Every structure is written in C-alpha cells, then in structure tokens.
C-alpha cells in the first residue's frame, strides 16, 4: 500500500494498489542489520546450550551439592524485571568497555535464555531412564564420554527446542539491544525498526513490512517446532 492509501479516509481491507517497493526498500534497509541479529542470536543459542545441557544432565542424574540453590536462583531470575539487569550491566559494561560489542549483548541476552533453558531441559530430562548411561559406564566409558555419546543424543529434541527459544529471545529483544548498542552499525533488526518511529512521525511503509520480515524466522520456527514447544513448555512450566 502507498502511504496515501494507508491512512486514507476510506478503509480497504485489501489494498487497491500493491506497492512492492515498500518491501524491497525495507529489505535493503534491514539487510546490513540482519547479520548483527543472526550473530547475536546464534551466539546466544550456542552458549545457552553449552551451559544448560551439561548443567541439566548433572542436576537431574548426577545430583551434585548446591543444585537446589542453583535451580532457585534460575527460577527467581525468571521473575525479575529486566530493569534490574539492564542498569547494572550497562554500568558494568561501560567500565569494561564492552558496550557496543556483539559479545557484550550476547552476555546480556544470556540472562534471559539460560535460566529458561535450564528449567525446560531439566523437566525434559527427568523422564528419561538413567540406566542407559549406567550401561555405557559399565562398558568402560567415563562420564564425559557417556555424556557425549549417550546423553546428548537422548536430549537432542529438548536441546533443539531450547536452542530455538534461545535464538528467538535475542532475536526479538529490544530492551538490552536498545540500551547496550548505541553504535548504529552494530544494532540488530529490532532497534532499527524501533527507531523508525522517529521524531517526525512514523514511517509506516518501512515499519510494517520490516516488522513482518523480522517476524518470519520466529513464525517458521514456531510452526515447525510447535509439538516440542507444547510438550516442553507444559512440563517445564507446571513442574
């Protein structure tokens, strides 16, 4: 739709003129930032899995001391408002000079993803038999080999689910990206779209196609993984 039609006095459910140039302009404007979003989301997902998968295995089957404390810590952090993380991290990152770096933003996003991933994976693992691991231990494997060869394949569906979530949470994150990324070149898609709402009005022909383009990976992932999401979530949340 062209701007003059978008808010014309007569409303049409279906546009009369299709303005495909809105989409191509939006795509061109977002393309440089797509890379930032991809890097941030992929790194966050990878680190989240690397922290949460062994920890969940250890908590459920190896039962180390302090696992209760760790779990309550993770649960509590899920309930805290983002502001209690954003401000200290901003000050800390300024001191350490990691404001305006992609890894800095990844560290901040981890505060959302790791607790969520650990809570979900723990619920996911609780239903699997430890006997499989014991069998491989009897066969002479050590715990680390058993983890790589036996546990990881068992956990794979759960890991895929938390990886998707840990990808999508930073993908849609605004508060951390807005506060910790002031360098325009490094900003992810969400911040670019947020800033399209400028002082001089809103650029709808960019904002709406851009928002929809940003949503595409999320919607694709969600439909593809909805079975895992439904199963993992209900177990994770109600436990």
């Amino acid at each position, binding site marked *: 739709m062209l701007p003059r039609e978008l808010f014309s006095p007569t409303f049409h459910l279906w546009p009369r003129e299709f303005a495909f140039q809105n989409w191509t302009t939006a795509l061109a404007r977002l393309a440089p930032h797509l890379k930032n979003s991809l890097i941030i989301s992929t790194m966050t997902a990878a680190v989240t899995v690397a922290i949460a998968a062994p920890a969940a295995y*250890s908590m459920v089957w190896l039962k180390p001391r302090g696992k209760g404390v760790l779990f309550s810590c993770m649960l509590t952090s899920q309930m805290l408002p983002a502001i209690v993380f954003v401000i*200290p991290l*901003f000050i800390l990152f300024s001191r350490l000079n990691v404001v305006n770096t992609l890894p800095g933003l990844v560290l901040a996003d981890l505060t959302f993803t790791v607790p969520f991933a650990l809570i979900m994976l723990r619920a996911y693992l609780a239903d699997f038999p430890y006997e499989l691991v014991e069998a491989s231990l009897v066969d002479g494997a050590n715990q680390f080999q058993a983890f790589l060869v036996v546990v990881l394949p068992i956990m794979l569906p759960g890991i895929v689910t938390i990886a998707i979530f840990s990808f999508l949470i930073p993908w*849609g994150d605004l508060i951390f990206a807005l506060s910790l990324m002031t360098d325009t070149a490094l900003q992810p898609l969400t911040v670019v779209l947020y800033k399209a709402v400028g002082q001089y009005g809103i650029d709808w022909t960019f904002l709406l196609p851009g928002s929809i383009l940003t949503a595409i990976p999320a919607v694709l*992932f*969600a439909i593809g993984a909805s079975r895992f999401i439904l199963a993992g979530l209900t177990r994770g949340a109600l436990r």
Partner: protein
Amino acid sequence: MSGDVKTKEEVSGDERVGTKKTSAPGGLFRGQKQNLPAYVFILPAFLFCALLLGYPVLYSLALSFRDATVETFVSGDMPFIGLSQYQQVIADPVFWKAMSNTVLFTFLSILFQFTIGFLLALYFQLNFQLRNLCLSLLLIPWVMPLLTSANTFKGLFNELGPVNQFCHALGLGIKPWLADPNYGLAAVIIANIWIGFPFNFVLLYSGIRAIPQEIYEAAKLDGASYWGRVFHITVPILKPVSIAVLMLGTIYTVKVFDLVWIMTGGGPGNGTHLLSTYAYQTGFSLLNFGQAAAIGTVIVLLILAINSIQFFLQRIL
C-alpha cells in the same frame, strides 16, 4: 488427577529411583570421589549464575541507595545517599500513575487472557478437523517478536487506522487511541491480551487433556449436561493448573516492557507508563540510574508479594 498432582508423583518417583540407585551397583559410579564430573558439568551454570544473575541483581540493589547519575557515574564516586531515592520515587505522581496502570493492566490482561484461554481450551477438547493446525496457528501471537505485534497494533490504533475506521463505521466516532492516556492504556491492554492468551490456552489445554475421558462418560450416563460437566469436573480438576497459570501470567505481565514502550512510550503526558517503562525512562532517558534501580527494587517487591499470595493460595485451596 490434575497436572500438578501428577508432576508431584513423578518427582517423588524420580527421587525414589535415585536413592535406590545409590545402593545398587550403579551407585558405584556416583560415590563421593567419582562425582567430580557432576561438578564439572554444572560449573559453567554456577559461574553464570554468580556473575550474570547474582552480581547484577545485588549491584542494582546497591545502586538504589547510591546517587548514580551521569555526572557521578563519569566521575566514578556515586556517593551513598540512603533511602532518599526511594523517597523521591514515592513523592513522584508519575510513579503512582505507573503503579495504578500496572495493577489495572495486569488485572484486565490476565482476566481476559485467562477467560479466552480457558474457553478455547474447552473448545479444543472437542474433536474437530484441522485441530492440530489451529493449535500451531494459535501459538503465533505468542512467539511473534513483540516488536512486530506492537508495531502492528500501533498501526491498527492509529488515528486513521483500521480500528478507528471500524469505530467510525459503527457510528462511534473517531477515538483518540494512543493520543489520550485512558484510551492509550485500553489499547495496550487489548494488544497484551492478544499476545498473552496463547500462553494461558496452552497450559490449560494440556491440563484438560490430562483429565481421563471416563469421568466425563460416567457423568454423561448420569445425565449431566455439557456445562454441568464443565463446572463439576473440568473446573475443579483444573484448579491447581489454573493457580499456576494465573500466577505465572501475573508475574510475566507485571514485567511487560517492550509492548508499552513501543506503542506509547509511556505517554502522552506520562499517562500510560507501567512501572517497567517508568523505570526504563528514569534510567535511560533521564539517565538517573540510581533512581531507576530504586524503581526496579519496588517492582521486585511487588513480584515477591504476588509470589507469597501464590504460596498462601496453594495452602488454603
């Protein structure tokens, strides 16, 4: 019976198996000395917890008692000023507006999200074609990046946008959505209901699916009507799940930030602020970090209060 009870059984079952194993041959590998891998596996999570969760939260608490603005931050001294930032916050009328908005926003969002989620869950209990497809589609509002939904609603509620076109066609006239604090709050609540109802639906639906069909069959034989079965079977069995859903939903709703920040930015005239956007504005627009941290602490206290209500409700119900 319900999801809650079942999970408790599973947890205790899990513990039983665990204790049995320590005495069984398999327990050999989990003796004190061999338990080193357990700590190696969990170490990164502990470090993460201490450095990226514990440290920021405690630092935020400490900041709320310190004069942390741009000037003191650059000079680096950030002097201790006790409770005075809390006093300033309490004296600020915008804080109380944000507080009442947060309460209203949370209450109305949860009320409608839960009702819609529950009715949908009841509907999905019936078998119908394309049920699984509809189930996946219903997840969309919830997994959609908040930015996309917020911008879409911003467009819908625009002065000349579809909602007003619709109001106009119904003869209600053009409403100042987003240009008036009260209408603005209504608009963000409507948007938030749309975003949040799938969460309620998914959890309630999985609770409903756990109810054995035999109970319904028996009630049907005894001549119970459909709504009779709903009120005397579904509702009581779903009670523990419902409490969990309501509490989780309430905590998530109190934390909502992006939606309001994108749709109204707390305006016009600071009239649609929630506590979260008020805190963010204080911190990153007015650059008063200490006071923002104080508001953050107030939000945490509010969430702790909601949590203790949950414990209380679970005791008595």
